[in-house]
């Protein structure tokens, strides 16, 4: 690949800087959330920094590979990620009653995070090859995309990692709505899916069923989700306008908050930095999303648009659902807050996604070889 000076000129520094700023806020916040937790070993904020650095390496790697090449090999990449997923469901490392990690040296990795990215690439590949010449996509055209999403979906539900499974469905729906689909056909497939559910139910183990039921009905577990929401809202609300100050959130430091380094990390931030801090973070996130959409709009070809759109919409839903949950307007589902929640695989995949956005953005003026 020949070096192109234009790439450097059109390198999306703004995106990188904003993403890194949010990462830094995340690390600082995880430090506070973990301050009084007894479990020793390596503190999570150090691990998070390590993951961010690993993520930057992958980001650099992805920027150098033309995204068209990635989309060309999308099915292969997706297949590979699914293989990892299958591997994990047999040999994986289980914690918190869910088997979703692969151990690599001292690090563990969740293939289900990677699947989000390969799903976007694969759907992009499908829709950019199978055009329908102006018409909307019908049911028949959606069979392959459905297979692309349902293959990993089944394994992820089995783990069970319902948050990620839900995210895959949301990405899928957002993508097909964007390329255009006949509403009637969408309804038909939706109804069929619902009818198929009891069959799938039959294959699930009791504890998996239990988790799914709790997922839809948090009242089933009054100590889990219900408790989480109350404490989370107290934390956010008590932050007031300016917050209680860094490392001074009582809800956080007294461990009233559940999952305070992962799913509920935003309540830690909101408690300590108040409405002012929350606004700053919201604006940074808004910038990232809008910037991503801009890259999608200005991409030079359809694959570029679809990839950038897919990544941005994944980012958007992650932010909206997580914060909505913490603020008590959406049900408690296990979806992490991008860049702020602790999670190695999630951070690495996010950095790779940012790499892809930069990739698409800086190649927008270049003619095809």
């Amino acid at each position, binding site marked *: 690949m020949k070096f192109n000076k234009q790439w450097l000129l059109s390198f999306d520094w703004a995106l990188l800087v904003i993403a890194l700023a949010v990462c830094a806020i995340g690390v600082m916040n995880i430090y506070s959330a973990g301050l*009084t937790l*007894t*479990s*020793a070993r390596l503190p999570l904020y150090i691990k998070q920094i390590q993951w961010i650095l690993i993520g930057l390496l992958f980001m650099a790697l992805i920027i150098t590979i033309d995204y068209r090449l990635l989309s060309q090999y999308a099915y292969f990449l997706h297949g590979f990620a699914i293989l990892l997923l299958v591997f994990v469901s047999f040999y994986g490392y289980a*914690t*918190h009653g869910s088997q979703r990690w692969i151990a690599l040296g001292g690090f563990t990795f969740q293939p289900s995070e990677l699947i989000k990215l390969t799903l976007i690439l694969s759907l992009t590949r499908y829709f*950019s090859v199978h*055009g*329908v*010449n*102006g*018409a909307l996509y019908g049911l028949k055209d959606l069979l392959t995309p459905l297979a692309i999403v349902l293959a990993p979906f089944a394994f992820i539900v089995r783990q069970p990692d319902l948050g990620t499974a839900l995210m895959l469905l949301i990405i899928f729906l957002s993508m097909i709505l*964007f*390329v*255009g689909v006949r509403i009637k056909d969408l309804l038909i497939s939706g109804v069929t899916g619902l009818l198929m559910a009891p069959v799938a139910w039959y294959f699930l183990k009791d504890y998996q069923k239990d988790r799914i039921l709790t997922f839809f009905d948090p009242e089933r*577990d*009054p*100590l889990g989700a*219900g*408790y989480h929401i*109350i*404490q989370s*809202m*107290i*934390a*956010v*609300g*008590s*932050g*007031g*306008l300016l917050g209680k100050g860094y490392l001074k959130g*009582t*809800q956080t430091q*007294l461990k*009233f908050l559940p999952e305070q380094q992962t799913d509920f990390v935003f309540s830690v931030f*909101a408690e300590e930095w*108040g*409405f002012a801090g*929350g*606004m700053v973070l*919201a604006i940074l*996130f*808004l910038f990232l*999303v*809008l910037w991503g*959409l801009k890259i*999608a709009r200005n991409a*030079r*070809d*359809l*694959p570029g*648009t679809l990839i950038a759109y897919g990544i941005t919409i994944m980012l*958007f839903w992650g932010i*909206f659902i997580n*914060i*909505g949950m913490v*603020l*008590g*307007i959406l049900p408690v589902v296990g979806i992490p807050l991008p860049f702020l929640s602790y999670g190695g695989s999630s951070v690495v995949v996010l950095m790779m996604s940012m790499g892809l956005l930069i990739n698409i953005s800086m190649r927008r003026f270049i003619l*095809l070889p």
Partner: protein
Amino acid sequence: MMDMSGRLSGHDASDYRARFRRLFALVLIAFVVLIVRMAYLQLIRGDEYKMRSENNSVRLRKLKPFRGLIMDSRRRVLADNQPAFDLIYVPSRITDIRQIADAVAGVYAKRGLNLSGDLPPLGKTKPFVPVRLERNISLEKTALVEAHALDLPGVVVEVAPVRRYLGGDVISHVIGYTGEISREELEERESDEIGPGDIIGKAGLEKLLDPYLAGRPGAEQVEVNVTGRVIKSLGSVAPVSGLNAVLTIDFDLQTVAANALEGRAGAVVVLDARDGSVLALVSSPSFDPNLFHGGISQRDWDKLARDPRHPMENRAVSGQYPPGSTYKIVTAAAALSEGLVAPETRFYCNGSFTLGNRSYRCWQRHGHGWVSLHRALVESCDVYFYNLGKALGVDKLAEYARSFGFGVRTGIDLPREKPGLVPTREWKSIKLKEPWQPGENIPISIGQGFDLATPLQLANAYAAVANGGILWRPRLVRQIEEADGRVVKQFPPQQIGVLSLSAPHLEMIRRGLWGVVNEPGGTGGALRRPEGDVAGKTGTAQVVGMPRDERAQRARILSDRFRDHALFACFAPYRQPEIAVAVVVENAGHGGAVAAPVARKIIDAYFQFKRERETPRIAPAAPAAGRDGGKRQPAEGQRETAREDGEGEGEGEDED
């Protein structure tokens, strides 16, 4: 239509731009929703939430599960739970522990009671983190605290089940005890369910079986008032009781074995020779595990930890003793298998054995005269075995010792088992950085010198000799059950090795062991029952090395600490062995005189219990017996007759 790769084929640019405009709008609306909600919570209701966070009134209270029961093989409960109350302080305004402790002490003083036990570190604490002021408080104190609730804001009484050990100090080393999880232990655990202040198994089976016994804590979400008292429950998840464990131990036999030691320091191990089940495992002196429930007081702990007799140590598995003459079966097995001696080979014993410029004495100063293998075992002639040791050399002997299970952990289900020591040339050059001396082959042939074995290894080796050569893993836990008796997990007997010894050779050694007890001149005469059904070997382990002169010998007698350990290992009945017993009594003198009578009591008791339990064959006891393993019943009937056969045999041999 925009280029060859097909930009959203068929859609014109304006339609396309409109799609992005709608997206921008959607994203903006979503963010506005979030920000409005945030403003509502933080700006409009901020003060209210701030107050709620300050005296956070919703708490998650842990509900402690009951630990599983531990039962002996006849389902007698050895460890259960009893309800108890802890005094807890949940700090809110006052975060100084001393202040609240003084307040509690003041209330107690009205009735002449004291705030006992070890207080947590006095001083400032973090608000809302519960602190335990006192464990296991009396009903009187409970009532007193409840009555003075208003004077003691934040002080609450919580129910906390406490372990009760019905087996007491008779079986404390096997059962172990529980205690509050330590900081280090907390860090080792991955699980979220265990937190500071939780009770876990600390020693013995309580520690090893903790994953089964512990159960799962439940939790209750409660709303509390300013004084920390629960106003209402908002929902709860019930705790799940732990699973029950059924042991192979026979508590009657355990009690007999514990009493037989009469308080002297030592250990007894009784194994079922047929499958390695541990019927009794005693270490003396012992401790009362009930001292540990709900935190042992510092004074009691110091008394236990500083006791020079080390009551906390489980001598049966962690005590390493020179096996003395009980080890001669290993030397005999090695010499027979290597073809160094035949049954008729004789050596002359004049009371000592000379190698180079050193001489090694036989315990019988006047010598045994010409002795064959059989008589050498019966009379425990040291010189005979010195000759074998010299011919075998250390490494050959070690090879056979390992096949008897010496020098490696047996793998019994107890923590802190020691491997003992079987010396080899390689071991000495690595550990002591010295070459092996030919003279060192001599003491190790009679279980002295570097040789070390645990009482458990000794019993296990004799069990293998008894059952025809199979080395079993000693098994303490038979099964894990649900509360309703449904078996969750079984621990079947497990074979870990085979003696490297041919059947005829093994029979020669077994016959020698029978002679030790039943023939004239045998050192184990104390075990000579009318049935003539015991076979065993005495041992006397010197605590200090071979004495060089009389002065050393006298010094040894003067100081109790340097007196010899008495050992005895045996099995019975001789023909169809059922049990193997090893006894070690520390600093007590000769094995035949001290350890053998202990073994006698145990073997007598074993056969007495067996008779008593078998007599009411059709009586109501039958279903109870059937529960702990129905298939055992008929098998024992067969053995009863077989034992009588053995008796006849035995007498015949005596005439020989």
